[in-house]
């Protein structure tokens, strides 16, 4: 096992060396930027540990624990990871303050997995001006895949638009004469899905989509919208809603004894907080897509990747709630960074780090679905862009079909 990993690393190092050799860079030479040395690599992060989005704070804690595990195993290429994470309370001004502290006071090598679209928008310009990598941001907006204007910012998870395109592709293939109604949340999240769906349907968008209905996050219930949609009599309902509203939608359609084909955003696929409150009976046959393994799904009980994840959680995050998807997410993101640092070898400059982050080839973290692979290149800064369709059956999701790709470039 250990030998295998060493061999793989060696092969990789050789491969990278061969590539860089032609450009004249000698690999044996150690090169460092601020934040890296012979013994340590300093990585910065901001997370909402307090405030309205504090539920996501567990991602930061998972990453911290992951790097502790890496350090216990001897670090990466002999260097320990020092992970400095601060609370931004999901407030953009605080995010700017904390990131400046990371860069100018803690002197980190790169910022990794900062969470939230507003916080990342606030720090993007500063980090790009300072030429500091903003690696694998934790948001699903499409704008992070923009290497031309922001060469120091790279995303991680599939963007909302690519996911919507996947649904559109699937519909074009399986149900080309569908009459589609779209229910979406009236903000950047919902609008990204709307745009992705229309782009994916292409020329057929105007004939297939018979209704677009939006709701506000502040509305207590969206029953009225569902009744209105039903009156238009579509046979496909796309539900681009956050968990609470998604559960209401599924429940209400069942109450109206209306059975359209329902497709649900990946954001709201939690069995515990959406499908169960909506009612398992009402949820049968709902479709969605996924890119990561569900930690509560028994089909992964013997999966080597999830076994490693379980061992990690038992040892480094004892007592944590294993059904929290944030821990699967943090583990996947942290292992991607570990991979990039490993690939960077002894050339721990910011330029090289960004270059390595943009040359991931078929990398598959333990927690991603079999077949979903991370690929990046100089013009593709969207690491994960594959998902697999799944159908709700019984009390869990069942994957079906092939892995579908939905790359979307930011305009």
């Amino acid at each position, binding site marked *: 096992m250990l030998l295998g990993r060493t061999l793989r690393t060696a092969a990789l190092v050789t491969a990278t060396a061969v590539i860089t050799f032609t450009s004249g860079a000698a690999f044996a030479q150690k090169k460092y930027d601020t934040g890296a040395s012979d013994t340590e690599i300093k990585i910065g992060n901001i997370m909402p*540990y*307090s*405030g*309205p989005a504090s539920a996501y704070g567990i991602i930061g804690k998972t990453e911290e624990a992951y790097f502790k595990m890496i350090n216990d195993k001897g670090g990466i290429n002999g260097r320990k990871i020092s992970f400095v*994470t*601060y*609370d931004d*309370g*999901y*407030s*953009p*001004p605080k995010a*700017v*303050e904390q990131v*400046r*502290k990371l*860069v*100018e*006071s803690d002197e980190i090598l790169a910022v990794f997995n900062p969470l939230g*679209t*507003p916080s990342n*928008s*606030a720090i*993007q*310009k*500063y980090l790009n001006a300072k030429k500091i990598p903003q690696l694998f941001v934790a948001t699903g*907006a499409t*704008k992070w895949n923009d290497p031309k204007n922001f060469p120091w910012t790279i995303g991680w998870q599939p963007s909302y638009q690519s996911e919507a395109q996947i649904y559109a592709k699937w519909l074009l293939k399986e149900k080309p004469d569908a009459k589609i109604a779209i229910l979406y949340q*009236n*903000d*950047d999240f919902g609008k990204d899905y709307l745009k992705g769906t229309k782009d994916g349907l292409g020329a057929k968008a105007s004939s297939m989509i018979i209704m677009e209905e939006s709701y506000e996050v*502040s509305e207590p219930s969206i029953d009225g919208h569902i009744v209105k949609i039903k009156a238009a009599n579509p046979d496909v309902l796309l539900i681009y809603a956050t968990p609470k509203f998604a559960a209401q939608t599924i429940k209400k359609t069942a109450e109206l004894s209306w059975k359209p084909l329902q497709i649900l955003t990946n954001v709201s696929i939690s069995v515990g907080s959406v499908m169960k409150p909506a009612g398992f009976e009402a949820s049968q046959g709902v479709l969605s897509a996924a890119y990561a393994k569900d930690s509560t799904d028994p089909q992964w009980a013997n999966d080597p990747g999830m076994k490693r994840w379980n061992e990690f959680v038992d040892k480094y995050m004892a007592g944590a709630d294993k059904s929290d998807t944030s821990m699967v997410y943090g583990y996947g993101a942290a292992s991607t960074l570990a991979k990039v640092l490993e690939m960077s070898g002894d050339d721990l400059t910011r330029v090289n780090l960004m270059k390595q982050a943009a040359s991931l080839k078929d990398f598959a973290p333990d927690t991603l679905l079999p077949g979903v692979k991370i690929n990046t290149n100089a013009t593709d800064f969207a690491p994960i862009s594959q998902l697999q369709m799944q159908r709700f059956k019984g009390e869990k999701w069942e994957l079906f079909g092939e892995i579908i790709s939905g790359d979307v470039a930011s305009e």
Partner: protein
Amino acid sequence: MSAAEDVVTEAPAVEAVPKRAMTLGTGTSLLVLAALLIMPVFVKNFIIFQMTMLLIYGLAVLALNILTGGSGQFSLGQSAFYAVGAYTTAVLMEHFNVNYALTLPIAGVVCFAFGFLFGQPALRLSGVYLALATFALATAMPQLLKLNFLEHWTGGVQGLVVTKPDAPFGLPMSQDMWLYYFTLVVVIAIYIFSVNLLRSRSGRAFMAIRDNEIAASAMGVDVALYKTLAFGVSAAVTGVAGSLGAIAVQFVAPDSYTITLAISLFLGMVVGGVGWLPGSIVGAAFIIFVPNLAEGISKGLSGAVFGVLLFLVIYLVPHGARQVAILGQQFAGKLRKN
């Protein structure tokens, strides 16, 4: 002691502060000014940025102090005025290419009008009811900024990125240092204006209303006018603080200006000492640095640690920094006698 008792006995909600006690002595003022002037030469850009934010929040707390300490009206809606100021600057700079310095007075005027107009209906309310009305304003503001028909200007949920100005005339200064001195000049100008305002006829009218509204009107003070005026001035100063904040942070988004900001400013005022203008800076320091300190003690329990620290401050020095300053003065006086 409780707020409920205050309402029942109809005693003024804010303790009367004599106007002379609202400021620092000349010697101390000059000392503080000198420290603020030379400090940036010795520290890193990040510290300069934090000091700039300190001045900006200090200005916003000062604005609330004029309203509450001066005219005795409560507001939990300062974040709304701060947001309007910030967005005015961001929209003018990014969509109309207006010079950043020019956007400050414009933001001030816009916010004055906004505050004055809001002051009209708010006149009928007092004490906790006024606090609730302003609270509603603060909660509504982030959603208003996300509205569809404003999205073209405000950028909706995505917000707007603001370009940071370079030092003019080719001065050999970093952007941060220039912005610090620029902010310092604006803050000092507004501080002097506020001190003079409170010492003027209008200031006396504010305080008369604060201490006893009926007596004030009996003396011929136009209560309605001065109450709305206090709201307008406070909103204008908050708006200028918001503009400076937008330039310093280089980004505006609805999530930056939630009710949390309004409560922070209120907290800053109480910790600094209600009605004591120099305390505004101390209050601002509390709301900027103490959460960082709390986070350093415990990441998971940062909120609880912050609460404990706040409780300690309120318990030990209920009148905030002003009390500490007075104690210090008495102590110095005793030393001198010996």
